[in-house]
């Protein structure tokens, strides 16, 4: 799709569950019987790209009869470090997969800059780097080889690929492991080589789905440093995590998801309202304290 950028029309940090505009992407799945989300209305505004780095408009996904993501509308401003948080099954990974062109939504549209992901996936994917949660790598390549092939497939010149590859391997502490097959990598090393592959082409937007899960503290520190340096260059990062402390520490903006819907979004201060993020999060999703007394059988008697 040829799209012409238009002047900014979206608010700086608009985010709501009401759809501003949406359409059914080509070949979208057939909604089955059962509970149906109300479909967003078609508007002519769909052809106008929003000014944010990322805009998801009325994004909807159903798995069978389950609504995984329900008419989600989200805008991520340029240069922000954006945290997407929510309990298990909230729809965070599904949302990131739909935004990055890895899972076709049943309704809605996604803009990466001036490009709609599902109408012009090539242009959209050129601008982004992705570290998915279920990272699938070529196990029979070495880390260095994988970076080289990814770079070449992305159309980078060989000398650029080799230079960036060496830089990334060194920065991420993988220079010694660069010659080992990925199948022999630990979980932390896999995350780091995945991050290197996502950064290789210096994307404008980086998506990280649970980047710190199962990663040791040293690797967490390394990844954090790399990400902080990346945002200093004006790039945008979106990442999902369960670890509230990391989100609070790194992000300037946060969105909270629950049961497929966006329950809050904005600057960290807006969302937390002076509380710790964890407390605000629990309040927002309406979680209740579990009655520990129900597990009284776990307590041993003194004798």
């Amino acid at each position, binding site marked *: 799709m040829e799209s012409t950028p238009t002047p900014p029309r979206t608010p700086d940090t608009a985010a709501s569950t009401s759809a501003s505009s949406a359409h059914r992407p080509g070949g979208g799945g057939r909604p089955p019987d059962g509970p149906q989300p109300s479909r967003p209305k078609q508007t002519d505004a769909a052809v106008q790209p929003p000014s944010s780095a990322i805009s998801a408009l009325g994004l909807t996904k159903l798995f*069978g009869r389950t609504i995984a993501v329900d008419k989600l509308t989200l805008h991520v401003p340029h240069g922000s470090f954006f945290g997407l948080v929510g309990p298990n099954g909230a729809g965070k990974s599904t949302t990131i997969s739909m935004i990055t062109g*890895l899972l076709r939504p049943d309704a809605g549209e996604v803009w990466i800059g001036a490009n709609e992901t599902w109408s012009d996936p090539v242009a959209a994917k050129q601008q982004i780097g992705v570290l998915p949660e279920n990272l699938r790598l070529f196990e029979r390549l070495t880390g260095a080889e994988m970076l080289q092939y990814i770079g070449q497939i992305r159309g980078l010149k060989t000398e650029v690929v080799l230079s960036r590859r060496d830089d990334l391997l060194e920065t991420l502490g993988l220079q010694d492991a660069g010659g080992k097959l990925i*199948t022999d990598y630990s979980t932390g090393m896999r995350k780091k080589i995945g991050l290197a592959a996502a950064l290789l082409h210096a994307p404008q937007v980086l998506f990280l789905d649970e980047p710190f899960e199962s990663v040791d503290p040293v690797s967490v520190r390394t990844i954090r440093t790399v990400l902080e340096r990346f945002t200093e260059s004006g790039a945008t990062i979106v990442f999902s995590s369960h670890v509230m402390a990391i989100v609070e520490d790194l992000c300037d903006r946060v969105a909270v998801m629950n049961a497929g819907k966006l329950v809050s979004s904005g600057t960290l201060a807006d969302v937390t309202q002076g509380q710790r993020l964890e407390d605000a999060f629990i309040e927002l999703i309406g979680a209740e304290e579990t009655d520990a007394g129900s597990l009284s059988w776990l307590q041993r008697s003194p004798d």
Partner: protein
Amino acid sequence: MVATFARLKLKLLRNSVRGKPQDVVSLLLAMFMGVGLVFGTVAAVVYLRTQAPELVGLWVINLFALLSVVWLIFPMLAGSTDGTVDPAKLAHLPLTDWNWITGLLTAAMVGVAPIATLLFLILWVVTAQTIGQGLYLLASSMVLLAICVVSAQAGTAFMSGLVRGRKTRDIAGALLAMFAVSFGFGFQFVVDPLFDLTEAQLGLGARWFRWLPGGWIGQGVAWSRDGDWIKAGGALVAGVGYVAVVSMVWWRQLQTLLTSTEERGGNGAKSDRFMPPVGELLPLDIRTSLARSLKEIRRDPRIWTTVVGQLPLIIILGFPISQWDNERLVLFSGMIGFYGGMLTANLFGVDSRSAWIDLSAAPSMRPILWGKSLAYALLVGPLGIVMALVLVLWKGGAVYMVGGIALTVAGFGAVAHVMIPTSVIHPIPLLEETNLFGGQAGGSVSAGIRVLIAIFLGSLYVAPAAGLMAGAAWLSPWATIAASPVVAVWGWLLWTRGIDKAENRIHTDQSKFLAALTP
């Protein structure tokens, strides 16, 4: 981009030599088999050079058409499309449709099977009488290879899409099982005439086969031999058109597979729904394991491909057996037991994580092994009875049915005796694949070798029971009924012994077992 994909594939193949020993052996054996195919072709074409020129043209049409059909059907039955360059691993990259199609097809053409096929085709050049014919054969070889590869990719991609729903898998599995059984025993009607082909029969085959895509190319070669270059050129253009159209259709299907997930919800699989009445008689731990395994078999499409992938075994075994025109043939329904036993060859590969939980939670792995293998026995049991009934209807000899069922138990026990410990010693962790039929190059060879070893060793173990049954059948049909309990108990004992061996192996070296389960 095409060159990058080709280099990527070559690198992956080269690095597989740095992998696990069985990967290396599989790749080497695949190459060995490829070389064997090429030498066989050399002998065939040298022989054909001595034949009349008209006959060569007819052979080319028939063989080229059959080749394209084999490339289409075999990967679906044997689950062996080369998915070494898994597109799911590149899905986040900005590739155009053209990049994807040309890149993936190029990668699919770099491998032992396609190169052996190309050599098989190119060797026909020795039958050319002029340089022009030789050049035409070279060009048509490339086009036919592309037809074969794109047909295989499209066929398996469509099958993967089709069997995403559980009910569709059930129906497709039943249909394919019926196909394998009927084809296995009915194959003689197709093959027998091949041993004594006349020119008229070859011509009849060519007349029909030339309508298949491979046949177009064969017909083109025949026309080039006649000097009819316009028609020959048209055949090549048609072949290229087929490749272009099927590539587009295949890529659309692959895109759908890449950007969607398996259907969920709806027809939920409740374990009690699948638990046969006999299950209630089992001890609780085995019953629990059986219920879980039955649920897993229905839910996981990778198990479906394993079950379907072993079906050619029925064809391989069925064909020589069906040559025998005797009512005792009913006893050979026992070969279904061999097929069932083969399914126990990778009990932990599909859900390797559960093995960790089982090992930490269960005091012994014996009930787990019983439950898993029993699930496959229950799956093939009805098939054995159906096959016995079919053979009775075909050849008569209803009295041999009991013996046939006893031999099914013996065959299952004999092969499970070998394969259950194998699934512990050399488990093959299965990865999630976009294309269910895609796998690492050499994977199908590895599975094929397991089949051959299992048939050989299973035959040795089942020999005493089979000998007893054969002796009984020689004495009197009714004696087979008397021998049946002994034969079934023999199979049962072998099965039990296989589970004991596997259990001992796990507990002797737990860490090695768990390490082998890590993909």
